């Protein structure tokens, strides 16, 4: 059990060997920055994926040959479909005009086919994928419909990217685990060697192995936790610096506001650092000084 005495002795040990511990914390922070950065990317990619997976939009591009009554019939049919929130017809000319206004460019060189007329269908966000697919299948069979864009391909690509990111994070996590074990283990073995007399004295006055190991475990745990916290602080600084520079451009591009690591993940990183640090210290203390 962690007692006040153990914590006090650990604190004393860390203060006396602060250079050694600072070096260890810095090394761990570098390792955790890699893991944290990967998690940050994955978290934001997942948010983008979620955003586009529930985009709630379907663009029905129409053939040039479609007649106005057919368009109206199609609009009426879509409006009456369950799960459809709104239906809006955008003519070819309006599409060209909208694009020119948004991009502030002269589009005189572009042909008329570049901006097909379309019906923008807004569906309920909770509409089931199966219902949406069924609706798209039915629409595709209509003679006036040229192409339908549900943004599913974009979402699939994002999902693949997220899976890749998760795999990369997993590998990085293993690298971090190994580095925590190596760095903390070495630091604790070195600290044990430097405090050899202290351990001898403790054994001579009747300290149990648990009493002797306690402070070293606390030190290892603190190193792991501080390494993770240092990494989070560094990442947060960089994240908010970059986010401030982009000034909303990124969010309008990807459709979501980039966010920092959620609290549970950040706290999890610190917790994992603490547990791994204690484990590494325990492994480093397998052979105590014999007295």
């Amino acid at each position: 059990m962690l007692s006040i005495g153990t914590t006090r002795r650990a604190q004393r040990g860390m203060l006396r060997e602060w250079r050694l511990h600072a070096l260890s914390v810095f090394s761990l922070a570098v390792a955790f920055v890699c893991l944290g950065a990967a998690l940050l990317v994955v978290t934001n990619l997942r948010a983008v994926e979620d955003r586009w997976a529930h985009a709630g939009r379907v663009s029905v591009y129409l053939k040039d040959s479609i007649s106005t009554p057919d368009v109206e019939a199609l609009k009426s049919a879509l409006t009456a479909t369950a799960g459809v929130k709104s239906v809006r017809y955008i003519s070819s000319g309006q599409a060209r005009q909208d694009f020119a206004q948004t991009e502030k460019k002269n589009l005189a060189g572009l042909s008329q086919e570049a901006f097909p007329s379309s019906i923008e269908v807004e569906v309920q966000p909770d509409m089931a994928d199966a219902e949406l697919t069924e609706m798209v299948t039915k629409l595709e069979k209509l003679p006036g419909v040229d192409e339908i864009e549900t943004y599913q391909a974009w979402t699939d690509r994002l999902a693949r990217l997220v899976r890749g990111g998760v795999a990369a994070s997993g590998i990085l996590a293993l690298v971090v685990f190994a580095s925590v074990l190596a760095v903390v283990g070495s630091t604790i073995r070195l600290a044990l060697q430097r405090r050899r007399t202290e351990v001898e004295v403790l054994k001579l006055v009747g300290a149990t192995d648990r009493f002797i190991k306690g402070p070293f475990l606390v030190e290892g745990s603190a190193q792991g936790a501080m390494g993770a916290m240092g990494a989070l602080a560094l990442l947060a600084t960089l994240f908010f610096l970059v986010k401030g520079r982009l000034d909303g451009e990124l969010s309008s591009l990807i459709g979501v506001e980039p966010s920092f690591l959620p609290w549970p993940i950040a706290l999890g990183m610190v917790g994992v650092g603490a547990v791994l640090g204690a484990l590494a210290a325990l492994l480093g203390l397998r052979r105590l000084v014999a007295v």
Partner: protein
Amino acid sequence: MPRFDDQDDAQESRPFRPLLRQGPRFARDAAARPILMFEDVYKSYRPGAPVLRGMNLVIERGEFVFITGPSGSGKSTLLRLLYRSETVDEGRILFMGRDIARLKDDSVPFLRRNIGVIFQDFKLVKTWSVFENVAITLEVLGLPQRLIKARVGEALERVGLAGRGSDAAGVLSGGEQQRVAVARAIVGEPALILADEPTGNLDPQLAIDILGLFEEIHESGTTVLFATHDRSLLDVRSRRLIVLDEGKAMDVAMGIAPAEEGYDNELPL
């Protein structure tokens, strides 16, 4: 387990002593037995060259015993066997009725809480303060800080270092460092004090001062085993003297005028 679960104010004025775990072989009449009994003890570090060869020795409670002998005679080995830094090859060492050699590893710390050990090289943590070096003995026992402060203060006063608690141990003189080591050994009020050449690094006058300190400790009822090969110290005080020679212990009376008592005062040193 140490029996310090229910400390109260009354305990501050009461002598306390950590207990050995009783175990299944505990004998209730142990208190009436000698504090130490060596029974046919053998110990060797190299095959064919035993340091102790069937040594027999009995030490009663409250005795002050000098242990002497030439270098390599086994003085330090004898003490190391007592605080279980080494184990016997054969024979038994009974400390307060329990066989030290049969103690399990996890019982050794509880044995050591009953023994104060002092070394020639002091074995102090130089980066710790005097207070911290002494207090560690009581911290191990889990005593509350208030009690530790009081006990350490008393111990430092006994060794003549009152008010020096905040000094770094590393900056003290040799004599002062040895006094800190003595304070560390006595602060837990152990049943037995083992001193392994405690004056070996000190000049003659300091050595006599330190010996006086051990005698004061002995006067409070603590059994003291004082290993030394310093003949001048043996001549200063009349105490029981055990000479280790050829792996065996011999009682030699000394320090008392031969003419008066008729003892042969010749030591095989």
